């Protein structure tokens, strides 16, 4: 039993989430209403969608630092294109450029043999620069009914954004934990030399996972655009580090090959809940960040330590 718990850190993250939520309901104001739950799962879905994508690449020992840029890219491009033509075209173009970024990332890893951190850092920088040029520094805002509905409407009381997130998570569970490609990703995350010597198709796996990650960042950008009605060049910035934090708090090893997509769902909820709690305590921005940092470190120490392989 103990071994089971130790090996299943995703379950831990749900346990911690339940505890924190219970504590919030008991000891903090305003966490006991349905509306508060609704708001929480809605805001968590933006981070959650990005983090699910990040999980896909972290699992194969990669990392994607360009997600923040892609979130902004997708939102800015969509808003701009939509104001020239219509919303549907904007969405299609935005998703297409997101996919393109993922393909470029994967190409750099495969053919230029760059470390993932360097490649995705570079594409992120290039995108940020390209956006400055594209918008001339002032991105446009746009109300796109479809996105508006996606971000703010409900199905049976559940926000549509959350439904989308959970659907994406379900698809990711299948991709990573049930499909052949997922097996390859896990194998790569555990040992690249052994994977090559076992015939794992490294290029295909890299392309699919990095493209899926970029696509999901693009989707998150669109949902955010719908939520705020305006795009900005910095709107993606928080998601770069928070998406990685959500993955790790979800029990996935940052070194790859160990963890579960569903853990990331818990991780994103946990991070959003913690942030909301700290806001509810009326802390200033500074103490709030300090508390968040300390809490993340404490949680990592509690269940995310890397076991030494030797």
């Amino acid at each position, binding site marked *: 039993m103990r071994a089971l718990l130790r090996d299943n850190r995703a379950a831990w993250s749900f346990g911690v989430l339940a505890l924190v939520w219970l504590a919030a309901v008991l000891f903090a104001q305003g966490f006991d209403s349905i509306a508060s739950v609704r708001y929480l799962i809605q805001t968590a879905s933006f981070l959650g969608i990005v983090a699910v994508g990040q999980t896909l690449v972290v699992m194969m020992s990669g990392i994607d630092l360009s997600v923040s840029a892609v979130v902004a890219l997708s939102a800015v491009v969509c808003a701009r294109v939509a104001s020239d033509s219509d919303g549907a075209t904007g969405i299609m173009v935005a998703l297409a450029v997101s996919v393109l970024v993922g393909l470029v990332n994967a190409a750099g890893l495969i053919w230029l043999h760059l470390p993932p*951190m360097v490649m995705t*850092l570079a594409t992120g*920088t290039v995108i940020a*620069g390209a956006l400055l040029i594209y918008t001339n520094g002032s991105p446009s805002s746009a109300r796109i009914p479809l996105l508006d509905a996606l971000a703010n409407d409900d199905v049976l009381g559940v926000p549509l954004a959350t439904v989308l997130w959970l659907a994406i998570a379900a698809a990711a569970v299948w991709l990573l934990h049930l499909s052949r490609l997922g097996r390859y990703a896990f194998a790569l995350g555990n040992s690249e030399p052994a994977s090559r010597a076992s015939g794992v198709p490294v290029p295909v796996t890299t392309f699919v996972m990095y493209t899926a990650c970029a696509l999901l960042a693009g989707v998150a950008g669109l949902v955010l655009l719908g939520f705020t009605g305006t795009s900005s060049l910095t709107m993606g910035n928080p998601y770069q580090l928070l998406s990685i934090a959500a993955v790790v708090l979800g029990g996935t090893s940052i070194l790859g090959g160990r963890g579960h997509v569903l853990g990331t769902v818990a991780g994103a909820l946990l991070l959003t809940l913690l942030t909301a709690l700290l806001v509810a305590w009326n802390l*200033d921005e*500074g103490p709030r960040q300090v508390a968040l940092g300390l809490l*993340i470190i404490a949680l990592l120490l509690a269940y995310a330590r890397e076991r030494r392989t030797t």
Partner: protein
Amino acid sequence: MPEFLRARLDLVGLCGLLVVVLFAYQQLDPTLLDPSTITILSAQFLPLILAAVGQTIVMLTGGIDLSLGAVLSLGMAVFVVTATDDAGGVLLAMALALVVTVLAGAANGVLVAYAGLPPIIVTLAASFLWGGVTLIVLPQPGGHVPSGLVRAYNMGWHGIALPAVAIAIALVGWKLVRSTRFGMAVYAVGGNEHGAYANGIATGRTKILAYGFAGFFVGLAGIGLAIQTGSGDPTIGVPYTLNSIAVAVLGGISFFGGVGQMRGTVLGALLLGLLTNLLLFTGISTFYQMILQGVVLVVAVAVKTLATRERVA
């Protein structure tokens, strides 16, 4: 390729590029070698150079510091909040800022060395922590830097380029540290941690010290940035995290530790800084500077990996 060149491929390549860029720069701005230009340029480049020096130290141990930007802001905040107008007060504020950043770095080091957490997530969490502390110290942009100091620093002091002197002193300082047993141990731990442990090197202590030293240089960068801009800003450090990594990688520092020279990092920082300025001169929008930075990074690292790959595969 001769063995000598091959072993120093990064440095030779960087030097070559730097010469080309300097030549182009000289054509566009004939005052390049005037003391005043050197003062301005060195003031402009100091934060990135010193931040990259800090990042390099951490990367040499096989780690990475994602909290660097936050610690840089922290050093800046402590300095501008405590600085007074007299020389003693300024020095005291500097010392205080450096103590704080060294402690912040060492705290990162303790978690990396003893908590069994990978450096990337420790410093990721720490970036929230130190960012928050910065906001407590300095909630809004502002603070106070004596105007005389700002003038002397940016315009030259009796004809001496203070920032250039500061950079030189810092680099000589690192050179000394690097040739102590600790400095050797940093490379040994980064190159083969298990081997270093088996040979009786205190790997944990080495890492903590290394992160502490990184904190010191990053603190200097923060102080320099405060004096250059004449005030403090709690979030100004953020871009330095990734830029410092980019510069270090450009300079030939390996992600896996134990490989690379500090002079590579410094060359990388100079190259990136000068290229950015060149763009300004040529009248291309500054917006292109980020694209340039990304492309330079990819090309430099790709050329290096592809050129040295034959040996491995």
